[in-house]
């Protein structure tokens, strides 16, 4: 069973990492989503126990550990919040930049770099 969880986690992580390397920001978000699902699967896989819910258990009966489930649930809620946030952010990026491609975002950085170079030029002139 643990093998199955490990495989599932590996596949999730692999697909997530692949998507992360894409240019399209929506795919990057999908990649992050998949990777956070991988963490959930790992939590469940690492703490899996079988048995009844630990409420009023008859003596001697196996109890399932509630903690990994609580962890997974909490991580799920947090994952939902962060994905919602990322989507809102990408939406805003699309509105401002009129594109969802990563390279176009970097164009602004190149402009900034050119400004810095001009400033260095000014420094050199001042020094000489």
């Amino acid at each position: 069973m643990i093998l199955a969880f490990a495989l599932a986690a590996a596949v999730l992580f692999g697909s997530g990492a692949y998507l992360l390397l894409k240019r399209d920001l929506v795919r990057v978000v999908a990649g992050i989503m998949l990777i956070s699902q991988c963490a959930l699967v790992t939590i469940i896989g690492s703490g899996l126990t079988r048995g009844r819910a630990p409420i009023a258990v008859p003596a001697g009966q196996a109890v399932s550990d509630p903690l990994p489930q609580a962890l997974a649930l909490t991580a799920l809620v947090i994952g939902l919040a962060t994905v919602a946030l990322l989507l809102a952010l990408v939406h805003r990026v699309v509105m401002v930049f009129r594109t969802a491609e990563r390279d176009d975002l970097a164009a602004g950085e190149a402009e900034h770099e050119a400004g810095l170079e001009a400033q260095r030029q000014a420094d050199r002139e001042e020094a000489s």
Partner: protein
Amino acid sequence: MSSGEPDRPDVIIRVIARMLLGPTLMVAAALVAKGYAEVGDGFGAGVAVALAIALTYVALGGARAEAALPVLRHGPKLAVGGLLLALATGFFPLLLGEPPVSHRPAPGEHVVKVGTLELFTPLVFDIGVFLLVVGVLIVLLHHLAGRDGRDGS
């Protein structure tokens, strides 16, 4: 898929969206009520309702969905109200000199029951979480459906 004008999705989606909303609310109520003995909680219920609302947005578009269901305009209020409700149930024991997240009626005390539903403060907490999740997701859907791009959530 795009059949006909872009602003008018399939009639089937619209009918299904309208029909699903009621039953989803029922399922959500069941999820909250059953959460103490079986599978279910406020978060799950909130996500279920938000999914139905998302379908409504897809079917009708932002403006018409919000005209059909005026409650969608109050997403922020729902979210804040829910969070405050949850925080209040979490921290009210401080006033009684108990550690946070204690619940009333305390363990072992008599609990009022309505059918199988037990009326105690964790139920209020779950309702708070439910409202928070629905509210936040409505805000998100509103922004994703809207045309203006200002003001992230």
